[in-house]
């Protein structure tokens, strides 16, 4: 019987398999950042262990870094955490892209950008959005600090094989509808726990049509519906993206790699444990109204009535969410005014995202009383955007053009919402307090973010 893409990659990485035990999986690439690694390096030191494969390990600084300058880290606790990573990287020989370096950026942006993320790999990082890298046809998943230490010490992880799931995306996205709208619509359809215990493969014409950036946006948010990992089979789009990048294979290695990568498809006679279908042609610009990514609706809809949810847990969660978000059932989503617009993050901080927003905002102005932050996902994305003049489009509109980092996605650096402030954000989580204590988040696409900045309330480009 045939195998799924996930099963092929899994099987190719089993170091050891024994009845009644988890498989021992080899890890091709371990990405590291400052937040989830200090206690892991301490663990190595305490046990007298070293990093087994520094050459398969790549570190960056992103969560704590400021985005208004490249020198001063005002918060001493943040500074200590970054300095700790620098010391650990030096002591253990791990390559690190520090604040100010040409390749610094959000960990899930720099891996693909360097060509270090490739099809058929196993990739882990102490960060749940590691699922982003699955866009290249790899098994990529987030791990905790104990597992970070385990990978540093052994370059392997004991893992029980997850189940497999296919998301069959039928039809094609309509003009003006993006990868972000599709994934937000899917999460609302299946719920935040819908993918639990599964590696998910996104399939279908609408997925094939997407650029690598769009595929990364989709895979990035796999964790938001509980999936262990999300992936897209590699194709010509993938190969074209990778060719010539610093860590991509070259010469004969390139040919050998591409030959192997072409085999990385789910066989016709393979079966998935679970299948889900979503009609891409029915998706509209989509936003969230609640406090988890599954509480979303088309922009054309109204804030739902909690009583309309049949499931009691969903009803209670909706009631809580409306209270926290200070929203009233029945309010058109387009009537919701915002204070802040955040364009960036590992979900939507790549060049294509900045281009999409710039196209909308070009020649227009950010509405009075609205603050818009534009935060490139990496220093390289920032440089590429500037080479195209995108920074001038944003600053002319009244938006802030900032340095690379996680920024306002998670409230760990100076970019935070004040209590009660409302944002339209291209990031991935609308949890209570995620962007700063008491902050209220609506998840949106880059195009909706830009239109919202101009309108001052949730809006699509077509509304302007």
């Amino acid at each position, binding site marked *: 019987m045939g195998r799924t893409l996930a099963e092929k990659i899994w099987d190719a990485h089993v170091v050891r398999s024994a009845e009644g035990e988890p498989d021992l999986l080899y890890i091709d690439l371990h990405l590291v950042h400052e937040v*989830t690694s200090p206690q892991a390096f301490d663990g190595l030191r305490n046990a007298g262990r070293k990093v*087994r494969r520094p050459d398969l390990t790549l570190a960056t600084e992103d969560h704590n870094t400021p985005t208004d300058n490249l020198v001063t880290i005002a918060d001493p606790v943040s500074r200590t955490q970054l300095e700790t990573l620098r010391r650990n990287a030096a002591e253990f020989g791990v*390559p690190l892209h520090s604040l100010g370096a040409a390749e610094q950026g959000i960990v899930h942006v720099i891996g693909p950008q360097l060509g270090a993320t490739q099809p058929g790999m196993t990739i882990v990082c102490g960060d749940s959005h590691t699922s982003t890298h699955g866009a290249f046809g790899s098994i990529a998943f987030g*791990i905790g600090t104990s597992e970070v230490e385990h990978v540093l010490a052994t370059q392997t992880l004991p893992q*029980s094989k*997850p189940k497999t799931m296919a998301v069959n995306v039928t039809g094609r996205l309509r003009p003006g509808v993006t990868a972000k709208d599709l994934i937000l619509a899917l999460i609302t359809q299946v719920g935040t726990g819908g993918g639990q215990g599964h590696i998910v493969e996104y399939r279908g014409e609408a997925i094939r049509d997407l650029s690598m950036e769009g595929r990364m946006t989709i895979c990035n948010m796999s964790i938001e519906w509980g999936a262990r990992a999300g992936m897209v089979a590699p194709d010509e789009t993938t190969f074209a993206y990778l060719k010539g990048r610093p860590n991509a294979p070259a010469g004969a290695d390139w040919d050998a790699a591409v030959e192997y990568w072409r085999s990385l498809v789910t066989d016709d006679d393979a079966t998935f444990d679970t299948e889900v279908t979503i009609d891409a042609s029915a998706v509209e610009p989509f936003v969230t109204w609640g406090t988890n990514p599954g509480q979303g609706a088309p922009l054309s809809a109204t804030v739902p009535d909690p009583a309309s949810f049949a499931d009691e847990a969903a009803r209670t969660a909706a009631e809580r969410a409306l209270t926290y978000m200070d929203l009233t059932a029945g309010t058109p989503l387009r009537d919701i005014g915002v204070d802040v617009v955040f364009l960036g993050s590992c979900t939507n901080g790549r060049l294509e995202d900045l281009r999409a927003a710039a196209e909308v905002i070009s020649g227009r102005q950010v509405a009075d009383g609205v603050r818009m932050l534009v935060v490139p996902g990496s220093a390289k994305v920032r440089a590429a955007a500037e080479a195209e003049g995108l920074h001038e489009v944003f600053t002319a509109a009244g938006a802030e053009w900032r340095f690379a980092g996680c920024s306002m996605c998670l409230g*760990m650096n100076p970019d935070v919402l004040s209590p009660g402030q409302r944002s339209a954000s291209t990031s991935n989580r609308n*949890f209570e307090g995620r962007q700063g204590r008491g902050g209220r988040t609506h998840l949106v696409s880059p195009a909706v973010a830009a239109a919202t900045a101009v309108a001052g309330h949730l809006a699509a480009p077509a509304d302007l």
Partner: protein
Amino acid sequence: MQKFTVHTGTGVPLRRSNVDTDQIIPAVYLKRVTRNGFEDGLFSAWRNDPEFVLNNESFAGGTVLVAGTDFGTGSSREHAVWALQDYGFKAVIAPRFGDIFRGNALKGGLLPVQLPQDAVETLWKLIEHDPSTQIAVDLVQREVRADGQSWSFELDDFTRWRLMEGLDDIGLTLRHEADIAAYESGRPSFKPSIATA
């Protein structure tokens, strides 16, 4: 890691679903580089509310958290497990867990116990009716017992054995160092490697 066999203690009823790890411990507490003392961050936003269950004296000293479905979704932060443990919890019971949280908890010896929704509802009522209700979380028998009732739960044999013995995963893996080296010698040359200093 401490061995886990049977833990008996009182419960704390957390009647909420979708408790993501940002709620368990907000990002601002993640800046620390040490391994201990995360209890002050546990549910820190919710603890400002006097009505929040952790502020209810009746449940003080509870060691078994009983929560709604999809507990521990979101961020991979293991600090969520550390915060629960540092506060004094030994086990969390919920109808479903976020995968990464569950994995982290099993690494650190905080037992995540998946029970059906109706069992969780029963436990909530028992605890709320009598906060001194003793809840036994029995890893050996793979069952939870309270007030004369019992519910079995699933956990694979290997993980159960590792927790009962209190074994360190890295030490176990390094017993297979020869297998790792053999695998490495066969990796294709086109796999990426990162230039090191």
